[in-house]
């Protein structure tokens, strides 16, 4: 029995949020595959980043050792998560910050909304953060009459386009420059109606649009890439300077942190600050990294520690290493499935290979997410690219088994069992083949294969072969 008197088998509760698909992957993928523009945009972007990443990874003679250390540090975190979180809390508190704990998305949203309300502000600026995307914070704030302004360029493109993110690092990766120009022209207040699609001009437009907001914002909301337990230091890794603006200028800073983001020691950052930038944007170092411990330079600082399905993930010995993830998105960029379907098909804000193992674990085996572990050819490119060595292919197979166990005896499983029994005995198999010959006239009727029924899913992507006039065995005997 566990602490709440619940049987241990029940385990920690699943989370809820924007990591549950609203339709199965094969359905969403089919629509995405038909979008030629999307496939061109993704093919171009992922091949660019793959080339850059390979170059800067090859440059480090000790990449393999860094990767081993990164994985080991994260495993250390998962084995002592309680201690490290308590240590982090004590150090952040000692330096003037306030630490809040949130069991799930609703609780985190409530905490943040209340903190913003206290300031009297009706507008907040946001640094790109997967955790706040996951819990739907912007929507929760909007319900409370608070407008959240995304300041990362790609997030801004998604927000202005009333779109959904499709990549962990570059949420607007599915858009090309001319689509972005069209969104800016239509939705960005005060933008030049003649705005060109030159990336420099688009970045300039975003700079002008956001600058006034940065200089007047009272409250900022961020996530964080790392939180050091032994010092209380938080780190945000970014490129544009929107992160620095949000972390530095507003008088109140609220950071939402997934509990698995804690690292034990300050020294551990020497590993992740080499692994992360090279894996994510393919640079030796990202333009800006900000670090702070507690409330500094006259700012009020709140840290919200978020569970939302992470402890449920921790409870699965063969699934928990998904919590090592540092959100670099290297696995997305090398994945042949992601490259063709894009992120929206996964339905979760965590798409691609890591999303296929993380989303169904955070959400619990939700029927809508059960197709995600199958959204892979198990080629293994993700495992090779992962800077913290998450064995995604093995985890996918494990999760497929969990899904199948939860589904019970499906028609497919039943058919396979019957087939196995039949093929085990040569005389049974011979009899079946002869019987199958009788169905030859039916095979002309193509619509028969399209009929709804227990095997319709199986037949949707496979042709039903016409049984031959004579089986190989019969031919051999008659020879």
């Amino acid at each position, binding site marked *: 029995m566990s*602490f709440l008197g619940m049987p241990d088998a029940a385990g920690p509760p699943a989370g809820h949020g924007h990591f549950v698909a609203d339709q199965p992957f094969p359905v969403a993928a089919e629509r995405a595959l038909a979008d030629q523009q999307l496939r061109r945009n993704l093919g171009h972007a992922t091949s660019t980043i793959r080339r850059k990443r390979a170059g800067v990874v090859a440059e480090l003679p000790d990449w393999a050792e860094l990767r081993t250390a990164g994985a080991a540090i994260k495993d250390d975190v998962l084995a002592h998560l309680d201690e490290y979180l308590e240590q982090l809390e004590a150090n952040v508190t000692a330096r003037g910050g306030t630490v809040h704990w949130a069991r799930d998305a609703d609780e985190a949203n409530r905490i943040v909304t209340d903190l913003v309300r206290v300031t009297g502000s009706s507008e907040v600026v946001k640094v790109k953060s997967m955790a706040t995307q996951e819990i739907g914070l912007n929507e929760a704030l909007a319900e409370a009459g608070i407008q959240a302004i995304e300041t990362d360029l790609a997030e801004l493109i998604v927000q202005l386009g009333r779109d959904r993110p499709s990549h962990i690092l570059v949420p607007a990766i599915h858009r090309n420059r001319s689509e972005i120009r069209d969104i800016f022209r239509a939705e960005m207040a005060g933008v030049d109606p003649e705005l060109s699609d030159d990336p420099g001009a688009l970045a300039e437009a975003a*700079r002008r649009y956001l600058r006034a907001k940065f200089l007047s914002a009272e409250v900022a909301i961020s996530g964080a890439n790392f939180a050091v337990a032994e010092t209380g230091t938080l780190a945000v890794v970014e490129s544009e300077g929107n992160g620095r603006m949000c972390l530095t200028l507003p008088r109140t800073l609220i950071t939402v942190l997934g509990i698995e983001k804690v690292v034990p020691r300050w020294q551990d950052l020497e590993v992740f600050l080499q692994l992360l930038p090279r894996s994510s944007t393919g640079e030796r170092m990202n*333009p800006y990294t900000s*670090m702070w*411990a507690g409330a500094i330079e006259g700012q009020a600082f709140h840290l919200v520690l978020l569970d939302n399905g992470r402890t449920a993930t921790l409870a699965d010995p063969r699934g928990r290493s998904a919590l090592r993830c540092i959100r670099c998105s290297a696995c997305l960029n090398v994945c042949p499935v992601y490259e063709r379907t894009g992120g929206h098909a996964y339905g979760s804000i965590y798409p691609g290979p890591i999303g296929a193992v993380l989303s169904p674990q955070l959400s619990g085996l939700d029927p809508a997410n059960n197709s995600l572990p199958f959204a892979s050819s198990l080629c293994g490119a993700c495992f090779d690219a992962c800077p913290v060595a998450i064995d995604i292919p093995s985890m996918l197979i494990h999760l497929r088994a969990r899904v199948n166990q939860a589904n019970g005896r499906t028609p497919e499983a039943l058919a396979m069992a019957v087939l196995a029994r039949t093929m085990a005995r040569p005389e049974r198999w011979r009899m079946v083949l002869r019987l199958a010959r009788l169905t030859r006239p039916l095979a002309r009727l193509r619509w028969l294969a399209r009929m709804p029924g227990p095997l319709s899913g199986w037949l949707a992507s496979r042709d039903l072969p016409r049984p031959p006039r004579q089986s190989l065995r019969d031919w051999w005997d008659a020879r």
Partner: protein
Amino acid sequence: MTDARTEILARIRAAQPDGPTAVPREYRQAQGAGDLERFAERVSDYRAGVHRGRGDPSAAATEILRARGLNRIVVPTGFPTQWLPQVELVFEPVELATLDAVGAVLTTCAVAIAETGTVVLDAGPGMGPRQLSLVPDYHLLLVRPEQILAGVPDAVAALDPLRPLTWISGPSATSDIELNRVEGVHGPRTLDVLIV
């Protein structure tokens, strides 16, 4: 009802493994001094200006600012007086609006990293609060050769994790449009590094 903290910690204790926790650190540890040429090359890869101040740092800084067409610059408290350039100087403290209007800032740094072309500011003397090196559109950074360390582990070991830290690798940039790098978004769009 249990409070969230108690409940989350209990969930963790019920779920977490008793695993081995040793971290093998066989990667390259701190190596000490960094190569100046490599640092200069890596900084310029980010399309930042790199200048080697032979002789008088003040004259070199003045020359760089003139070439950029700048005749006013914000100077943080504690900046070495012998390095001050011959332009109009706006001393800290400065209001946000002034920072924005002057649009140029001059700072020192805490450490620099050769392998990644990174400079780290820790809000100490000559660097000022974080917003000082952020709001102006132009940043001139003075680096002493002995501040250049070999790699990231050297910098982590040399820095104080309790200070506000800003790691800077080139000017502000984005890769958000088709994953191509474009310099200049919200931070300083032009970065000059002067090695003195």
